[in-house]
């Protein structure tokens, strides 16, 4: 029962955070200079009366409450409103791009983690020279995502998945190495080594099962990192995903798209956080 209450509380908090993110985006965009500028006002073919009508229509849409109500109506109808930029339903715009971004995220996170684990496992067991082996990851950490993506394009090698994987690997490597270093030094592992257990057996039977809860929690961080990196990667590689849509919406002050993307991102981060906390708590029990 207490578990259900805890889950309900967490779900409620996540929902509140998502609504807060949506409200914040509406406020931010509403007060952005030039938000109510209408390209039709500069079009000579509109008569004075028509222009006055357009202005009156825009003035009516100025209150935050009105915008919020329209947004909620859009969410309830499942359409998320109509994009100001493309004049198509936002759900349709996002639906087509979510698959592309989700695939990119999944591949990037999976490969990044694989690379980080494969590197951290042997390096964490080293007693000397670990600094030298850590150098490539420190170097990767010092390269901005945009620069990494541009370098890939220049070298005509790799693509968005490689950049995302390298970024995730660089970010998670240090956490993993610290975690595994602690695991290698634990007394039961020293005992196992003294008894002649093979490193493979130590890793599969003792180290990995012990660090799984922490790894689950770290995955949430990877999702947040990957979501943040999605924008420059998709823009530079011209991947038609949610990141590129968000960038284009930001540049064109497309409120319905921005609110929908913010909601989507807040949902992913919120639920991933909720899930990882639950996993860690349950494992602790």
């Amino acid at each position: 029962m207490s578990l259900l209450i805890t889950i309900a509380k967490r779900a409620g908090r996540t929902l509140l955070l998502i609504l807060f993110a949506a409200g914040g985006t509406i406020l931010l965009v509403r007060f952005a200079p030039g938000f109510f500028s209408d390209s039709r006002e500069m079009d000579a073919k509109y008569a004075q009366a028509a222009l006055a009508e357009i202005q009156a229509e825009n003035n009516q849409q100025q209150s935050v409450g009105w915008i919020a109500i329209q947004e909620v109506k859009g969410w309830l109808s499942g359409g998320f409103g109509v994009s100001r930029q493309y004049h198509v339903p936002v759900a349709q715009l996002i639906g087509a791009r979510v698959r592309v971004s989700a695939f990119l995220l999944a591949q990037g996170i999976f490969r990044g983690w694989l690379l980080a684990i494969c590197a951290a496992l042997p390096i964490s067991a080293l007693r000397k020279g670990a600094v030298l082996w850590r150098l490539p990851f420190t170097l990767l950490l010092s390269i901005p995502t945009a620069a990494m993506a541009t370098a890939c394009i220049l070298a005509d090698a790799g693509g968005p998945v490689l950049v995302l994987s390298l970024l995730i690997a660089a970010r998670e490597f240090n956490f993993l190495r610290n975690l595994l270093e602690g695991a290698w030094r634990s007394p039961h592992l020293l005992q196992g080594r003294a008894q002649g257990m093979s490193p493979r057996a130590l890793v599969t039977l003792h180290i990995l099962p012990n660090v799984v809860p922490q790894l689950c929690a770290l995955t949430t961080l990877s999702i947040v990192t990957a979501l943040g990196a999605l924008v420059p990667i998709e823009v530079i590689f011209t991947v038609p995903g949610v990141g590129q849509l968000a960038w284009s919406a930001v540049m064109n002050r497309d409120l319905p798209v921005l609110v929908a993307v913010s909601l989507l991102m807040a949902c992913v981060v919120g639920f991933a956080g909720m899930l990882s906390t639950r996993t860690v708590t349950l494992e602790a029990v």
Partner: protein
Amino acid sequence: MKKRIAAAILLLLILGATLVLRMSRYDYAFQDREAIMAPSTAQHWTGTDELGRDRTVRVAAALLIGLTGAAAAAITTMIAACFGLLAAFSPRWVAAILMFLSDAFLSLPWLFLLMLARSLLPLTASPLETAVTTFLILAALGWPACARAIYRGASVLRSAEWMIQGHACGLKTRQLIRLHILPHLRSLLLPQFLICVPAFIVAEANLGALGLGVGEPMPSWGAMLLELENSALLAQSHWVYLPIALLVAVLLILESFTTEVETNA
């Protein structure tokens, strides 16, 4: 030792950049129309860009502007310290609200949040205004994770025995924070500040590469990364890679500070 070498290199880079800006006869915005996309010459040591602007001067200016990230990091650490301490020494409901607020900021990926906030500012802002705004936004949005760490640290210290002793001696909470809590939190605040500096420089570079960073003609790492997309410029000179090489070097130096402080902690 490692920290001292890193600090010395960083200081040398800053001094070098300042000297270049002082001694050069070109301004970072000056366009030499006779030397568009020029290779390395006696006038332009590292060549010019597609508008004929001296690359050495621009890189030097970008280095100094990028290091303004340190000021933004200081502001964000101060905001985080205020939030964390306020939450730790307030009634529980105030702490809950403040931590919910920090969670709300953390519920969106940082770069997306930065992009959102930065893009919604006036389009007609001057280059200096865009630079100040960019770093102020970084400072204004970078505090939540740091505030959470400080809140946790301050909460532990609040229930320490010497705090109870201090209260019993008649010291006010404000005095206790100033005289005892803040010095104890220094080991937490310094790493937070050092983590923020490279993070802000990287964020500025990413924003700049998306066209949302410091406005032209003011040089910035992000804007200089965009040069790499110009294939004609790349074919002309290898000096185009200078900004990215220098940026990585600066970030590596800053990362080494962070690693050392984390190891000592």
